[in-house]
């Protein structure tokens, strides 16, 4: 792990702790905790998780499916429009590698609402 990644993990754990407290106060129903395991497994998962949830929820990332090139464009927007500090060199590569593998282009995945009927009832 590079020092850069180590640093990010430390800082972002604090953010998660704060967010968790809010949920504990305000929620009675169980909710998926906002932690790295909500991202698919893969090399550098935790680091990418913490970078990408510094400002917004993981949902925004998980809902997407892009090629590596398009993920690079998305990160470009994060930097240009949203104040994300630019990732460079190896850090950028690692982040893009993870995102492209974990969240590749996907189809609409139409699921018949009746498919799991017998178990749902």
């Amino acid at each position: 792990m590079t020092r850069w990644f180590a640093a990010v993990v430390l800082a972002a754990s604090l953010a998660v702790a704060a967010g968790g407290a809010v949920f504990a106060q305000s929620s009675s129903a169980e909710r998926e905790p906002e932690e790295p395991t909500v991202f698919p497994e893969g090399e550098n998962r935790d680091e990418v998780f913490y970078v990408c949830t510094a400002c917004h929820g993981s949902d925004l990332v998980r809902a997407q499916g892009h090629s590596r090139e398009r993920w690079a464009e998305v990160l470009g927007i994060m930097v240009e429009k949203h104040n994300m500090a630019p990732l460079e060199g190896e850090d950028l590569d690692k982040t893009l590698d993870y995102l492209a593998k974990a969240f590749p282009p996907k189809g609409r995945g139409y699921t018949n609402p009746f498919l799991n009927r017998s178990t749902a009832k």
Partner: protein
Amino acid sequence: MAKGWKERGFFELYQDDPERADALVFGRRTGASRRGFLQGTGLAAMGAMVGGAIPFSGNMPSGLIPAAMAQGSAAAPKILKMDGKAELVILGDKPFVAETPEHLLNDDITPNDKIFIRNNGTPPDAAGNPDSWELTVDGEVNKALKLTLGELKQKFKPVTYALQMECGGNGRSFFEPKASGNQWTNGAISNARWTGVRLKDVLEAAGLKSSAVYTGHYGRDSHLSGDPNKPAISRGMPIAKAMEEHTIIAYAVNGGPIPQINGAPLRLIVPGWPGSTSQKWLSRIWIRDKEHDGQGMTGTSYRVPIKPMIPGSKADPKNFRILESMPVRSIITNIANGTELKAGTRAIALRGHAWAGEHSVAEVHVSGDYGQTWRKAKVAKAANKYAWQTWNADLTVPSEGYYEFWVRAIDSTGRGQSHAAANWNPQGYGGNVMHRIAVLIPA
């Protein structure tokens, strides 16, 4: 800039000065009232706003909510449980975004609890005294105005209209390959009865200079990065749209106060155009002498390609124009996707709404056989310009079994809805595929 912490080591830096460390690692600039990560998260603000009662439920009621058909992934939708809001589908909690499933949009006038939620940033705290809320109108005007909401109500004539308010990204989830952003199905739409003053009247009071060409809107929500100098969103419109009769500065909805999360106490309603022009928590309208260049105006945000691009390829921002009128769309609202109808059902009465941005809806068609045959629906007149229209249609099916009901509308200019989202663009604007629901008719 990034060098600072690489040289010194982040641990050391964080201990010395958390805010600086924060800025270096995430580029996040924190305001004087915020300290680093630990405060000012969207969720905390949201909890405060609704009185701390936001339990979430990860499970969908079986057979009730459109699952992957609507949502675009295998995961069950997260259902909102929040005072003052119906069971909307949560698309994200930071920023807080939730859509209204089509079957909750059956009312002709959308009640407050069913108005969808879209934030770009962190909402402000509720105003203690709404009547003292201030709005500034400045820029290319003869006399800049600073008005409280109380003065606004006193000085200008109130108007009330039923108005469509739709997120610019509505329908995004149907793009292939996937477009970036919130994966809306068709539920980022509302048609509530808004009360306010005409923007036109206020602009006339300020006196537009001949150099005025565009508006730029600002609200009191804050950017997710915590940078106090960066608006969460700041869009605008050409003066002609601002001067329309139905473009209003709203302070009430459905006869009462606007829900805090929907922009109380003051917001714009720019009907028929992407919802991002309808600035929430409105604090300033800057009259510009050129197209506004605020957050969300440039690049490929809220824009569509002029010449169609290869889906999934790299966008050339020069080939993009601002999305103005929203496209035509129709939804079935009286039967939820995944409903099991009564055994023996052969005749089905379908009902829903259709709207078309700045235009009106000319025709609505329904099909019970995947579009092989279509039947024309009865389409009612709009309550006023920019209100959606209600349609009704009867369908019969020949047997028991699994059916899909589809709906499509055609607007007054002859444009309709397609099977596949047209004119692909990286952030997914302008998609208007037909709405479809699946039902089961047991033997």
